[in-house]
Structure formats: C-alpha cells, structure tokens
C-alpha cells in the first residue's frame, strides 16, 4: 500500500512533464529533511555523548580529559540532582493529571449541542496559543501577594504562592494546567465526537445509567486518543523550563531542566551537563515507551 502511494506519479502532472522520476521526487522531499536532522539533531546528539565522558568546559581553553563514567557517577550520587528528579516527577504527575481532568471534563461539557459552541471552543483554546514566557510573566503578576488579583479574588490576604517553598511547585503546575488543559480538551473532543451514536442509543434502550455508559462506552473508546494526549503532555511537562524559571526560584520547584540550564550555561560544566542531559533523555525515552506499549494494548482491545 505504502509503496504504491510513493511510486505512482500522475503522467499529466507538471513534475512528470519536467522529466522528474518518482524516485527523484521522493528524494527531493526526503533528503533535505534527513540532512537537516543529521546536522542539527543526530550529530550534536552523538557529539555530546562523547563530551559526557569528559571534563570539558566550553568556557576555558583547557583540553577535555576523558574521565570515563565519573560524570554519571557524580550526578547519580548528588542528592541535589535526585531532589530535582523528585520535584520533576511530582510536577509531571500533578500537572498532567490536572490537565487530563480539566481538559476531559471541559470536553464532556462541550460535547453536546449548545449555542456558540465554536466560539466557546476557540476562546477556550486561547491560553495554549500564548508564549510560555508571556504566560509566566502574567501569572507572576496574578500570584503577587501585594497586588495580585488571585489573592484579591479569593480573599487570601498576602498568601505567598511563589515564595512559599511548599506552595511554589503547585503554583507552577496550576499555571501549566491553565495553559495546557485546552490541548487535552481539543484531543478529547475529537475522540468524543468519534464515538458512534448508536452505542449510546443501545445503552439507553438497555437502560444503562450515566456512570455505566461513561465507564463502559465513552472512556474505553476515547482512551487511545487520551493516551496520546498524556504522552505529549508528559514529555512536555518533563522538559518544562521557561514557565518554572520565570515564576519562581524556590529550590522546591527547581525542575531538572532548570538544573541542566544552570549547569550548562551558567557554570559552563559542559561535560557534566551533557551527561545529565543524557540521563534525562533516557528517562523520557523509557517513560514514553511504557506509554506507547500501553497505547498499543488499548488500541488492540
């Protein structure tokens, strides 16, 4: 199927008239992309793997010495790095669970005939169209204990959202939930509208309750697309940098990417930060793989 799609070229098309063969057209499209990938992704990836075994510092002229697994050993033995990972894990769980709950909930509400549905959906999508840095700066003002509108509206006085070590991470996660729930909502809406109506009719005839219908029909059928949303959001949440960096400097909200940035571009420990980047990469790959396995299972059902 796939090969026939690539090799058939309409004889009357302009490309065919210019004497381009199917293969050359395919190459024309694919080779630049592959070259781009190799130069900007694959090559740096392999190059930095080499650096991760050295004590290289980009800010000095000193030659890079091979140190074996020293960087990895130091990093995995550093309690601060572990605390960054713990913070990141907590953040990913809170923020993805929150987005799933809010996003899917709003999608359920929108999945019916209501007036101005299109306009409403578009307006709800606005947060996710903003830049991360802008959202961070806005929410910093909203959270401000002296003049922030959140404390004013909720009557919390001078509650310190971002300066309180216990609250800071939740505040960042809350902002992330606000920003990215629309994304989950959008995917869920697509999933919900694809559920065949006759299933609901059959359930109604059988006098199935709303909970039963939800857990036996809606959820299983939307699950695959919901899983895709979870994969995307988990990967993104794992890499969150700008939002957290702008909002707070609490060590209790220091995500792994912030530690990585500091190590690489403030301290210029190039070798060690490459090693940390690899550890993060392996973790994201592992988590994504688990999800993908699960996704395939869900699809099979």
């Amino acid at each position, binding site marked *: 199927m796939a090969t026939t799609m690539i090799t058939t070229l309409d004889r009357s098309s302009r490309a065919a008239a210019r004497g381009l063969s199917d293969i050359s057209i395919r190459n024309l499209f694919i080779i630049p992309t592959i070259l781009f990938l190799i130069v900007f992704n694959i090559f740096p990836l392999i190059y930095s793997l080499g650096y991760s075994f050295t004590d290289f*510092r*980009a*800010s*000095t*002229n000193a030659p890079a010495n091979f140190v074996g697994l020293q960087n990895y050993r130091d990093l995995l033995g550093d309690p*601060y790095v572990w605390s960054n990972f713990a913070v990141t894990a907590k953040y990913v769980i809170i923020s993805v669970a929150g987005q799933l709950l809010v996003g899917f909930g709003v999608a359920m509400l929108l999945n019916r005939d209501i007036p101005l549905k299109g306009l409403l959906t578009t307006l709800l999508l606005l947060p996710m169209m903003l830049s991360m840095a802008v959202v961070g700066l806005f929410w910093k003002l909203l959270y*401000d*204990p*002296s003049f922030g509108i959140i404390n004013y509206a909720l009557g919390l006085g*001078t509650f*310190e*959202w*971002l*300066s309180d*070590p216990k609250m800071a991470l939740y505040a960042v996660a809350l902002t992330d939930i606000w920003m990215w729930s629309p994304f989950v909502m959008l995917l869920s809406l697509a999933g919900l509208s694809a559920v065949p109506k006759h299933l609901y009719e059959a359930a109604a005839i059988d006098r199935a309750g709303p909970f039963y219908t939800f857990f036996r029909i809606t959820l299983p059928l939307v699950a695959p697309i919901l899983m895709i949303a979870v994969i995307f959001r988990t990967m993104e949440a794992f890499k969150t940098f700008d939002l957290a960096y702008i909002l*707070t*400097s*609490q*060590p209790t909200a220091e995500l792994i990417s912030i530690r990585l940035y*500091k190590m690489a*571009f*403030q*301290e*210029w*420990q190039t070798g060690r930060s490459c090693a940390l980047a690899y550890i993060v990469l392996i973790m994201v790959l592992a988590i994504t793989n688990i999800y993908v396995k699960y996704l395939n299972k869900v699809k099979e059902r």
Partner: protein
Amino acid sequence: MRKTMTSLLAGIGLVLACGTSVYAQDKSLTIFWAEWDPANYLQELGNEYEKETGVKITVETTPWPDFQTKAFTEFNAHGDAYDMVVGDSQWLGAGSTGGHYVDLTDFFNKHKVGDVMAPATVKYYAEYPGGSSKYWAIPLEGDAVGWSYRKDWFEDPKEKEAFKAKYGYDLDVPKDFKALRDIAEFFHRPDQKKYGIAIYTDNTYDAMAMGFENALFSYGGELGDYSTYKVDGFINSDKAIAALDAYKELYTFTPPGWAKSFFVEDNQAITENLAAMSMNYFAFFPSLINEASNPNAKNTGFFANPPGPNGDQFAALGGQGISIVSYSKKQDEATKFLEWFIKDETQKKWAALGGYTCSAAVLKSDEFQNATPYNKAFYETMFKVKDFWAVPEYAELLQQLNQRIYPYVIGGPGTAKETLDALAADWNATFKKYGRGQ
C-alpha cells in the same frame, strides 16, 4: 509560494547588504554590556569619542539575566562581534585563563592605571589572580551595595518618639547592624502594609551572595583565603555564623513574597511605599532621586552599609571593568579608546554623565561628592569593599552558596552552623576538583 520565495530572497539580500555596509565602516568599535542606565551613559561618552576621533562607538546591550550567558557564548565560539566587554568582576578568572581577555599588564604599567584608579577597584575589577600584578581590565563602572531609606518615615516626630521609647536611642540612619535590625523591626507593620526592610534574596545569580556578603563582611567574616583557597574557619567561622543569622532575621522584616528579589524589587520597595530601608547597588540609585521614576524622590535618603558588632565596616562589591576581547580584530583601536578613557577629563565627563567613575582623584573631589545625595556614601563605600571569588569556576561556587544559604534564609530547617559547614564542604570539594590550594 513564489511571492514568499521572492521576499525571502530579498530579505537575505538586505541582510547581506547591511552586513557589508557595517563591515565597510572599519573605524568602529563595539562594546558589550548589560542593559541598564550606565550603558546609555557609556554610549553618550562614546559619542564624544566619535566627535574627537571619528571612531564610532556602539554599546550593545542585553538584559542582565542573559548577560553572562550571552557574553560567554560569544567568547566560547571565539567570535569577534564585540571588541570590548564590560564584564562582571567575577568573570576575570574565566576571562583570563580561558584566553578571552587580552592581557593589559603592559598597558597598566605604562599608563600607571594603578595610581589613577581607586585601589579596591584595581584589585577587584582588573587583577587576576589576586596579588599577581597581572591585569586584564580597566576599572570602568565602580559599584557597591548601599542602602536607601525613607527620610519622611525616619523624621516623623511621632515615630521618633515611639522608637526612642521602645529602643532607648534616637531613630536615625543606622549606625551599626543592630540599629539596622531594630529599625527594620520597628517599621515592620504588616497590618498597615508597611514593612521594615528590603534585601536581596534571588538565588539565580549573585543576588543572594551580594546581600549576605554585606552582613558577612561587616561582621568581620570572610568567604575564605583568596590566595590559599582555604575556606574552613572562614566561611563557617563564628563571625560568619552570626552574620548569616543576622541576615536571616532581616528577612523576617521584608514585604510578603520577598523570596526572589533583586535590584528591581528593592527599588520598588521604596517607590511603592513598601519598606523603610532598601539594599541596592549604587548604580540603581539615580532612578530613586528622579521624580519621574520615584514618587518619593524628595523623601529618599541614602547611607553606606553600616558596621557590624565589632566595628568592621565593609560592603559587597558590584561594578565592572572593561576588557579587550582577544578575538577582536581591532585591538589597537580598542587600546586607543582605553587610553582616552583613563584620562582625567574623560573620567570627569564620565562621572558627569552619570557613570560611577573609579578614578581616585575624581572620587575625592568635592565636586563629585556633592553632585548627588548618594555620591558621598558611594565614595565612602568604594574604599572598603570586598568581592566574591573570581576563579573561573565562580559560577559553581555561587550555585553552591545559593543552594545552601537560600533555603536557610527564607525559613528552611537547620542551623546557621550546619548550613555554613555544608557550604565549606561543597567549596572544598570544588576547589579540590580544580586542583586549587590542597
């Protein structure tokens, strides 16, 4: 599609054209600095230089949080975008040993720069390693941490009376750290939305270090021995422990949400009627006497960092020296600019424009000291400043300091001794890693 392509090509062409036109004008120098008022003053000074010599000076800037990253990215790539850079004092080690800065020792000796500039500025903005008589920069913008305060709050007769009744001495500009603490406590009234004091707490770059150093140095403490890299018995001495506890106590008198504050927030504390006193670099005081940026301009006073319990009086050093970038192709032109810059009349002009000159002669002149309400405090401070480590790995040392001290100051667990012992251990490990001291 074709239209897009055409405009894209036109754009590329334009960029190339601009590129060549800049290149053609070879009598020009680019200086890189952070985005703040002094950089604008330097541009004005540069315009004067262009009038005299025809060499165009462009001061290129970037916001403070990016400054270090952007400068070193350019250095590491051996780029020649900047001919000179006005770098932070801590960069000297990385700049000199990394080969990014041109060695200015001969220039220094030939023009006797050591006699022209105030001694502390030569020591901290120019020399590396400490005591080596090797120089890498010319002191350009002197700066240190000082204090601003609300004169109207301090001079209110009712407040004066209440203060005297409570503490047994007159309310006035703090004479020592104890008075600083008392006044902060006295004015700390959360129910009236008035707070005692604004200090530096941001833990992303050197804010926390600068703030804590003000207490540490005045308490007679030290970060360590800069020549032997010994830190045990310095950073965790009894004096340092007392200083850290004093700084932590000051934090309890700050406005709400004061856990990520640096120069912007500390000036806001004065302009927004939040705090009675506020710590800040002198470089940010010009906007406090400007009615347009500070509604309380008439009621804002200034003082130097007060002495500690044993009478030691020091302050944390800010400020920068100007260095020639070793990858620049116009080093001779840059040297000529520096020769012009260190002249007495240039230094006077620099001070008049709003720059904080490091020239000892200008600093000592009555003309300079009476020019603004804070120049006298600045003059007093510039002869008793101390700075952070300037070794190439200073950023790691800063990060370790932030990691240990920040949680403690903003209310974390543990004691000051545990905190500083742990910091000493971190620093020892870092120095060992780079083979220093032993």
